[in-house]
């Protein structure tokens, strides 16, 4: 029997993914749902309370219920604000918890005198609040919050059943109340799930396409790199080597010259090795600004080469905002300063024992770090390998345990002078900032006209820069 080759399944979106997280610019477009829903919830709560004065027994409780719901709506609007993105789980829980408090207070205020469950404002308000979470929170979370709310709302309805004006089985009231919460929650969860899956699918395809395009360029890039390297080698080295080979003999001058050339080439190569993506990017922007007839002065301060520790998303986001700043109208080409410093250890590339097999004739000196530099004596036997493996394991463990103690954070600071009215500047940079907020743990924007300062943190303690969900 033959079996069809199974088609490879697309990777699934991470459970913590939301529209806002995956597509920050899309999340930006979706944010008006929060104030609109808040307005509806508050208006309905006030209208429903005012129109049923005969049911209310304890006015204070009724007022507190409305106030609690107003606070819930306010928290929703505040949490959804693009400049405070991302909408965290804590904020979602606070919104729903306040809605539940409003519900319990409202039920208590009309205790034994509530005519009907269906016209209570709190379950519907709660349902709408949950609906507004759709673009901001993962579907499982919305579902869980909706489920818990529905159970509480259903239970309150059951408790009130004996005193209601309609004579039907109590379960009916519970079903009605729960539906008011569950229907919008399920709708929101379904929306969130569908949108996240669509974006994730697009991202997977887009990344594949980007990889493909990059691979297409491989030959071209290889050529460029080789050309660049050979050119950098200077006109001296190759003719010198060829000359020595041709003469088939070395003079004392040749030896001296070889030494100086070796030193020069090595110095150039070391400088090139220290180059990071950030240097490349700024260099390109500098060239673009010069092309526009400007006289740019862009400063990068990243002595520990921390830029190398940024992942590809962080590079893309930081790169995009730098390009956006440089091309913004009113950008002062002499004002750009990019600085990276951090609290954790510098990227492994420079921090560890990156030493060449030193210069000739090394002077004996005591080892400075006995843990990482173990003494290796001559002619190791196979048995000694075991001990070395243990030493290696310890050496590897040490920096790791150190980094887990305190939270290691790299902070990138971008400063630029932009003589644009604050409103226009904000509008132009808003989408880029929303992307930065999605990939960095903290984004701070300060502005003292015309100087704009952006600061964002990249967590280095974990494996990735995932923020509190």
């Amino acid at each position, binding site marked *: 029997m033959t079996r069809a080759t199974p088609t490879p399944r697309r990777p699934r979106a991470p459970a913590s993914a939301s529209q806002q997280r995956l597509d920050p*610019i899309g999340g930006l477009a*979706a944010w008006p*749902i929060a104030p609109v829903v808040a307005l509806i919830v508050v208006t309905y709560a006030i209208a429903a309370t005012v129109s049923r004065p005969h049911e209310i027994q304890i006015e204070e409780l009724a007022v507190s219920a409305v106030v609690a719901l107003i606070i819930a709506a306010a928290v929703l609007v505040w949490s959804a604000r693009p400049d405070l993105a991302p909408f965290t789980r804590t904020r979602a829980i606070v919104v729903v918890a306040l809605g539940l408090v409003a519900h319990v207070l409202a039920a208590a205020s009309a205790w034994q005198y509530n005519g009907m469950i269906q016209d209570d404002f709190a379950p519907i308000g709660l349902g709408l609040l949950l609906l507004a979470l*759709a673009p901001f929170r993962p579907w499982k979370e919305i579902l869980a919050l909706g489920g818990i709310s529905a159970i509480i709302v259903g239970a309150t309805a059951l408790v009130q059943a004996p005193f209601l004006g*309609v004579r*039907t089985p109590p379960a*009916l009231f519970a*079903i009605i109340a729960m*539906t008011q919460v*569950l*229907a919008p929650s*399920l*709708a*929101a969860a379904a929306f969130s*799930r*569908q949108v996240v899956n669509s*974006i994730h699918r*697009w*991202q997977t395809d887009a*990344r594949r396409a*980007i990889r493909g395009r*990059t*691979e297409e360029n491989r030959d071209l*890039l290889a050529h*460029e790199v*080789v050309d660049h*390297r050979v050119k950098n*080698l200077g006109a001296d080295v190759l003719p010198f*080597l060829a000359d*020595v080979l041709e003469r*088939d003999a*070395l003079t004392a001058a*040749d030896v001296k010259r*070889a030494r100086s050339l070796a030193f020069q080439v090595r110095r150039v190569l070391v400088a*090139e090795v220290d180059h990071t*993506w950030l240097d490349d*990017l700024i260099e390109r922007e500098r060239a673009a600004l010069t092309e526009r007839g400007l006289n740019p002065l862009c400063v990068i301060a990243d002595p520990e080469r921390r830029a190398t520790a940024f992942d*590809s998303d962080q590079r*893309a986001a930081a*790169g*995009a905002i730098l390009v*956006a700043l440089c091309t913004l109208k009113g950008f002062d080409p002499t004002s750009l300063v990019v600085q990276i410093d951090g609290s954790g250890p510098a990227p*492994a*590339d420079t921090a560890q024992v990156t*030493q*060449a*097999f030193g210069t000739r*004739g*090394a*002077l004996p000196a005591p080892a400075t770090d006995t843990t990482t*530099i173990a*003494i290796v004596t*001559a002619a*190791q036997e196979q048995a000694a390998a075991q001990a*070395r493996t243990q*030493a*290696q394991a310890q050496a590897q463990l040490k920096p790791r345990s150190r980094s887990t103690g305190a939270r290691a954070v790299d902070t990138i600071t971008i400063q630029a002078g932009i003589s644009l009215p604050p409103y226009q500047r904000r509008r132009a940079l808003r989408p*880029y900032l929303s*992307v930065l907020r999605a*990939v960095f743990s903290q984004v701070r924007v300060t502005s003292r006209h015309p100087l704009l300062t952006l600061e964002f943190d990249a967590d280095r303690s974990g494996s990735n820069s995932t923020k509190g969900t």
Partner: protein
Amino acid sequence: MSLGLPGHLVQRTLARAIARGAHWFALTCFSAAILSVSILALRTPELWITIVVVAVMAALLILFTRHRRIPLAVAYLLVGTIGVYVFTATVLGVPDVFPASNMFLVALPKMALVMVGGAGSTALAGVLWSTAAFLLAEAAAFLAIVGTTVPYRPDLFTLSTYLVLVGVMVLAGIDRRASNAAQPAIHRAVQDGANRQLRDALDTRAIALLNDTTVSQLVALSLAEPGALSPALKASLRDTLTTLHDTNWLADIDARTTTSPQPTVHEQAPTPSPAWRSSAVYTAVERCRDRGLKVEVTGDRDALARLDAGSDRDVGLAVQQCLVNVILHAGIDSAELSIESDRTTISLLITDAGRGFTESESASDRLGLRQSVRRRIEQLGGSVLIWSRPGAGASVRLTVPAETPSIKPKPTLPTHHTPVRPGSLNATPANATPAPRYPR
């Protein structure tokens, strides 16, 4: 993730997601309606008909969610209208239960019907479908209510559901991103990043290779005694020049598996297995032996066959650089290479009993280990550990991930010391897949 949806996909994606949300809203309403009337039907058996009606509507909706076609939407709308009529008339017809017509229970099928609009492909279509559904549902309900004794009250539940749905569709339909250049800019930044990464990888390799060739060559010349060139020096000089003049050296490296064997070969060692001889590490060891270094190889040599072509090449170059460092700096003419492997990694330990070094003295001269060894190995996902002290020799351990062996490799030649062959110049065996021209 920073790759958001591009403008042309936004509408379609949001429309689908709203449709999904609307369908779940409707299904929840249907479930609640069925549950409620089932409870009521225990006392009033004539309500069973409503269960059937709602079940038919739900079935049509599920069919519609599976196949989003206009005839199904029309069918859902028509059957739903009849359903709303029957449901409203039957439920409100139960005597002495409901005080007025505006009961949430009665609104459930109407709200579900309005949700048909969520499946519209555009905001306008969605609004039109929803409006049609709303009007039909309200008309059917009105006719049904008129036939009962219950007083008519406007149903705010259906109305507000309709308004919220329309609001959401309109909100999603206004594409406020159309004029926004940010999304393409982000996309470009990601593409740039990918290009830069590839370029960096190529550059890393290029610098390492230049260090292996040019710098090593210059250092070798600077250490040589004036006078006639030794044959080994001459050969390596020629090799360096050929490598650098051939502008395709980066591309050539990739083609390791397809290069033809080198012409200057004559079989020498009787013991080495094909797996070991075809590895780039073997070639590296041989090249350094050609330069007069005695290299003792121990351990699981066949494990190197588990490396793919690219890893094998880079590990070979890294080992070569370590051995070249011994030749240039250690002041000793022998070194030891031991190979260990476990299920997921292969470790190579290069040990010499030479001068050794400290961290501080290598600050200005860190290119060899850093670029040619550490960067190469780290690009493969491996790690490099160095132990050294002045006067006490040096050890470098390269650990690289390797494919899990499907069959346990034969423990051939464990701890068997290959005899050192100082005179075996150009001793690449015939069936070895030689590494590309890189210098000694």
